[in-house]
């Protein structure tokens, strides 16, 4: 059936229904195309050229090959994976732990909830200002107190030390994004029927067993979605790392997005930069597809 005939048939039905459908989808599709579709297509197009912003020459997949075999790709990929996994998992753990805590209705639960959402709403720039100021080797209070209390001999430049740079960046990221999982999980927790826990206690289950058999299945979907969505976002995160360490020291925190930036603006190699972005895209897409197939996070929980 051609699109036209199909449209005709569809339009034959309830007018109002279709009007609503169009009204809801036209703006959406338009947005999507202008803000995402065209730029992505454009960028992917650029990746097939050498010097796409100047005198461009078509080179096919050469940029992709160059990028993957070039130096820095392996390190950047590794750093990206480490960063994405550690910040996602840590913020999930923090969020889950806190959700479990707040779920038990302690005093100050409300205040805690307000507290938790605040970092998420702050611009990353401000978050970085705060953390850079705290961890600075010269004006940082963390170093100041550690040195004064004798824990350290001399200040540690957290964002500049090979061993500390990545952890420091992860801490700042968890600080900002921990609340995302907190709220999602807390909502799910509060939807669990408390009778289930009563019954479990009566039947003699320990806290751990109750957690394992009641709580976890209910949270499964939420946890899986959080892992995927946050994983993707942290993998692509640029500003937090760039603003705090610029990828240093010595590439210790250079993740793939940082590498994209370097290619685009330091080396002025837009073909390479867009190729790398394309590679990241396909990587993430592949992971997502597999993830959806294997885990089916939107499935209903069987009680």
């Amino acid at each position, binding site marked *: 059936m051609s699109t036209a005939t199909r449209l005709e048939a569809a339009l034959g039905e309830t007018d109002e229904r279709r009007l609503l459908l169009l009204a809801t989808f036209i703006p959406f599709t338009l947005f999507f195309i202008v803000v995402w579709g065209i730029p992505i297509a454009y960028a992917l197009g650029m990746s097939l050229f050498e010097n796409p912003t100047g005198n461009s020459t078509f080179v096919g997949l050469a940029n992709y090959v160059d990028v993957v075999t070039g130096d820095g790709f392996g390190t950047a990929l590794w750093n990206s994976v480490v960063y994405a996994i550690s910040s996602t998992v840590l913020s999930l753990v923090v969020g889950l732990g806190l959700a479990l805590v707040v779920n038990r209705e302690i005093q100050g639960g409300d205040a805690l909830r307000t507290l938790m959402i605040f970092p998420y*709403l702050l611009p990353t720039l401000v978050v970085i200002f705060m953390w850079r100021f705290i961890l600075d080797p010269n004006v940082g209070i963390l170093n100041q107190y550690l040195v004064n209390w004798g824990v350290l001999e001399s200040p540690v430049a957290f964002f500049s030390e090979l061993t500390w740079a990545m952890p420091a960046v992860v801490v700042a990221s968890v600080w900002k994004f921990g609340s995302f999982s907190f709220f*999602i999980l807390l909502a799910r927790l509060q939807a669990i029927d408390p009778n289930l826990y009563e019954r479990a206690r009566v039947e003699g289950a320990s806290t751990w067993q109750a957690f394992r058999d009641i709580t976890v299945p209910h949270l499964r979907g939420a946890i899986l979605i959080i892992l995927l969505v946050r994983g993707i976002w942290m993998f692509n995160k640029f500003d937090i790392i760039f603003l705090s360490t610029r990828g240093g020291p010595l590439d210790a925190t250079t993740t793939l997005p940082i590498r994209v930036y370097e290619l685009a603006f330091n080396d002025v190699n837009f073909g390479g930069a867009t190729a790398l972005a394309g590679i990241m*895209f396909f990587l993430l897409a592949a992971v997502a597809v597999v993830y959806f197939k294997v885990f089916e996070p939107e499935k209903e929980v069987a009680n």
Partner: protein
Amino acid sequence: MAWLGEGAAGSIVSQRTQERVRRVAVILTALVVAVFVTIPVYVMVAIAIQAPAATFAGGEVNLLPTAPTFENFMVLFTETATPRYFFNSVVVTATSTFLSTALAVAAGYGLTRFDFRGKTLAARAVLFAYMFSPIVLAIPLYVIFFSLGLLNSYFALSLALTGISAPFTIWLMWQYFQTVPMALEESAWVRGASRTRTLWEVVLPVARPGYISAAIFSFAVAWNDYTMARVVMSQDEMYTMTVGASLFLDRVSIGWSETMAASLLVSIPPFLIALFLQNYLLQGFNVGGLE
């Protein structure tokens, strides 16, 4: 066997002790997190309200303001375009939050109530948008906006920001609407209400927690944005706070104290939102589809 007590764990440690340990652990965790979250905020406030000379006196950073002052804010207001930047941020964020939420409700509803082939795929596809690194998208976007003559307009920036938050908010509302039973709407139809009216008067109020969280998400995206603002705006009067603040970093007359003051200003709307809306959040994120 009787001596195993009331539960496997109960044999080693009585349930009451378990309870107490749990309670202590809970309170400790809450405290640790509260401190962890509050300290950076406290530092920001402490530095913002002290004169630079007081903050750095004696070579140490002083966190106990003995003589609070508005000096840093004054510097910001007189020597930078901070008020203007703030205003721009507010305009653009408010517009994009509204647009994104409206879009999310409309499209989310549409996704739930209308069936078409590949619906799940389409809904998941929106998440794929986030997989392309925004850094390289800045240039195509600049070219597009430039060709459409949209540079340096609130409209363009609001659109761009909506475009960024929309995929997730739409997906969020889609999940949420799935928990709103058709029965609700059907009973309204039975009583003769039009579909539109039902949507407006029956479904929306029930969906409020959902769209509040969509609003919060789009607010966070818009308020936080730096990349889009840099792409769309090139005139100083049109810069948002985040872009303006990044310019501070290089200026000789703007140091840590003024930076913290600017940060404090930028934190006020988020704080207000956190204060007033945190209630709704809970129900909102109870995304039924995740069940």
